């Protein structure tokens, strides 16, 4: 987050990338959410950017698939689920095919091993300059700082990631990493880091970046990419971008390393049709990304260009933990970001940084606690209204709200949820069991809340209410940011009953 005046007129020091993605644990979401709540401009960026993508996705999916849309995303989910259900078999099939195509296949059990492999490959080939395209796995492993520490200059070539890198910031969205920054932040970064002339024109800013990066592409001896899909039957990597930076990163240097999570496997080339039709529509409301690149092995004998060496690093780093039956569906995720754009909480907390981890939004709230420990990220499953917008938006039909509820159950079962909260919930459950206890409890609460009410009274006999500006006890935190309306004098239920004709005797 760049420093900018907040609503209170204060300057806050921006958090650094490392701090944002790897906060001190256990992570408390409230601090960052509050910080964002004060930053009106930030919330406006995130709100408008997500809203545009949210509407765009609905329109393009509807116009392409019409009534079939729901069945198509169920099919996509079923194909991915099938690949996960037989992941051992498909992993071997992919490995055999990729090796036959001439790739060197590595297996990384965790982030440290993944980085170690990349460094060893870079050093083996004497690489000094690396061009890198967007990859969420490399964010997980913090690969770029590791390469830089080993003296290998590494450049993020996706425009958004490049700017994030210049500012030592962290991506705040899976697809559009600088959703939280505006053009003045870009202009300042280019003046400071590239010695460019100050301009706020997005066209000219983009051309400055292009010129800078072209020289790097020409000189680079190492290219690092991720992959959107791995095709088991052919050993191919499939990479989708709009800028063309992945194609240049993969084709220009003499060594190409692809770092890919093992959940990216799909069985056949034809399955790709299903996913390509959904991915770009869900991510950016495009029918397909500008470049869809299918890479199978390194340069062959007789070919003039392309990498001499292709290394594919298949990464676990917590995925086999998610593979257990109850969470397996979460690995179907194709990282389109549609659930982020749809989520009212993601919008209100100022985007991805509030989630304190690489994956943000609803999908992040569901996978981070499993991958990095529920105790460390207990706030994330709570950060949802369970409205279901993410489930509706998901192109591979992941029931994210159900997963969040499951995690909340686990919070209680493992007693991570505090004693007080558990007791309140237990009392609430008991009260809801019987009609009279419920009515007595609700009546008492009604009186207490009405007594706290302040301000002008609405005299309307039905709505007759005031506002609570400062709640009591645990309610105080809630009323810090908003006013709570008091309940009416008479419950709606009683009013409704009085409007109905007299009921026959014996009705409960």
């Amino acid at each position, binding site marked *: 987050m760049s420093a900018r005046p907040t609503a209170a007129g204060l300057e806050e020091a921006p958090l650094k990338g490392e701090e944002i993605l790897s906060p001190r644990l256990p992570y408390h979401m409230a601090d960052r959410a509050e910080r964002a709540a004060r930053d009106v401009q930030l919330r406006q960026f995130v709100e408008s950017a997500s809203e545009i993508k949210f509407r765009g996705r609905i329109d393009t999916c509807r116009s392409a698939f019409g009534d079939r849309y729901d069945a198509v995303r169920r*099919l996509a989910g079923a194909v991915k689920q099938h690949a996960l259900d037989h992941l051992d078999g498909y992993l071997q099939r992919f490995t055999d095919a990729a090796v036959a195509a001439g790739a060197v296949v590595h297996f990384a059990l965790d982030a440290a091993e993944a980085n170690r492999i990349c460094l060893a490959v870079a050093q083996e080939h004497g690489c000094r300059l690396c061009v890198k395209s967007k990859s969420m796995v490399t964010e997980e492993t913090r690969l770029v700082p590791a390469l830089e520490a080993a003296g290998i200059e590494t450049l993020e070539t996706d425009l958004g990631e490049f700017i994030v890198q210049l500012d030592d910031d962290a991506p705040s969205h899976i697809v*559009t990493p600088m959703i939280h920054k505006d053009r003045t932040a870009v202009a300042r970064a280019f003046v400071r880091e590239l010695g460019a002339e100050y301009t706020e024109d997005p066209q000219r800013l983009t051309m400055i970046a292009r010129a800078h990066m072209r020289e790097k592409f020409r000189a680079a001896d190492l290219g690092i990419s991720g992959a959107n899909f791995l095709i088991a039957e*052919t050993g191919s990597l499939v990479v989708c971008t709009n800028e063309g930076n992945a194609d240049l990163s993969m084709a220009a240097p003499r060594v190409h390393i692809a770092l890919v999570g093992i959940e990216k496997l799909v069985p056949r080339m034809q399955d790709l049709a299903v996913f390509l039709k959904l991915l770009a529509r869900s991510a950016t409301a495009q029918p397909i990304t*500008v470049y869809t690149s299918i890479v199978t092995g390194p340069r062959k004998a007789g070919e003039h260009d392309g990498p001499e060496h292709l290394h594919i690093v*298949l990464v676990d780093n917590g995925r*086999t933990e998610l593979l257990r039956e109850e969470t397996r569906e979460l690995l179907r995720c194709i990282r389109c970001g549609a659930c982020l754009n749809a989520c009212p909480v993601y919008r209100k907390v100022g985007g991805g940084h509030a989630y304190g981890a690489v994956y943000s939004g609803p999908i992040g709230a569901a996978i981070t606690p499993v991958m990095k420990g529920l105790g460390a990220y207990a706030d994330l499953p709570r950060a949802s209204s369970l409205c279901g917008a993410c489930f509706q938006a998901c192109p591979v039909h992941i029931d994210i709200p159900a997963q969040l509820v499951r995690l909340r159950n686990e919070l209680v079962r493992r007693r991570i949820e505090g004693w007080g909260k558990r007791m309140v919930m237990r009392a609430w459950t008991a009260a809801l069991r019987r009609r009279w206890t419920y009515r007595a409890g609700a009546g008492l609460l009604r009186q207490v809340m009405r007594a706290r009410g302040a301000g002008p009274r609405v005299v309307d006999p039905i709505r007759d209410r005031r506002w609570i500006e400062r709640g009591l006890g645990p309610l105080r935190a809630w009323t810090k940011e908003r006013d709570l309306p008091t309940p009416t004098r008479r419950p709606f239920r009683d009013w409704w009953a009085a409007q109905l004709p007299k009921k026959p005797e014996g009705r409960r």
Partner: protein
Amino acid sequence: MSGRIANPDSQGEMLRRIRAALGARAGDPPPAAPLVDEELVRLVSPEAPLAALFSRRAADNGIRVHRCSAAQLRETLAGILRDEGACSVCTALPAGAVADAALGAAGDAGAAVIAARSRPGLGAAFEADAGITDAEAVIAETGSVVVRSDSERGRGVFVAPPVHIAVLPGAGAFPDLLDFLRTLRSPPTSLVLVSGPSKTADIEGILITGVHGPRAVHVVLTE
């Protein structure tokens, strides 16, 4: 360098973890994957007027589509090069009609020809103002041009120069992505579906073309 598994120990451990999570028995081959139901997934019928549909969708993507006879190809290419003000052209084409037309057109438009093979790696493509490729196919559904790399074609020509001109000689239009991908049994080392000029909207969501790849893409369909 030939392919191999670099660290079988970690491979074994990863497979063990996977099987522990799945409860699967070692070595069971996966059963048939779910059927990709055409009724659901297909967006363009094989009976659709493919050239017209492709032209429309490609135009939506920001690609300029030209149609001409084989005899007019040289003239059409020269026209595009002049309009784009290209002073140099990079090509990586197999010998034949398209290569001849491209060379002739470059001469007509006064553009220098830089053969991809004249510089190491993508060097030639980075220098040129325009690149001419012969497309493997076009896909009507998505308005995409398919370019491949092999011993005669390069990986840089379609992406490094500011202008990319793809020629599709004769028929080669697939209705749906599904139709194209089903033919792809043994893919070449690199195969790219190009669906427009290079784009970004990273700065405040404002669409800019020509960020890393070309700012303009032309497709010439010859009859």
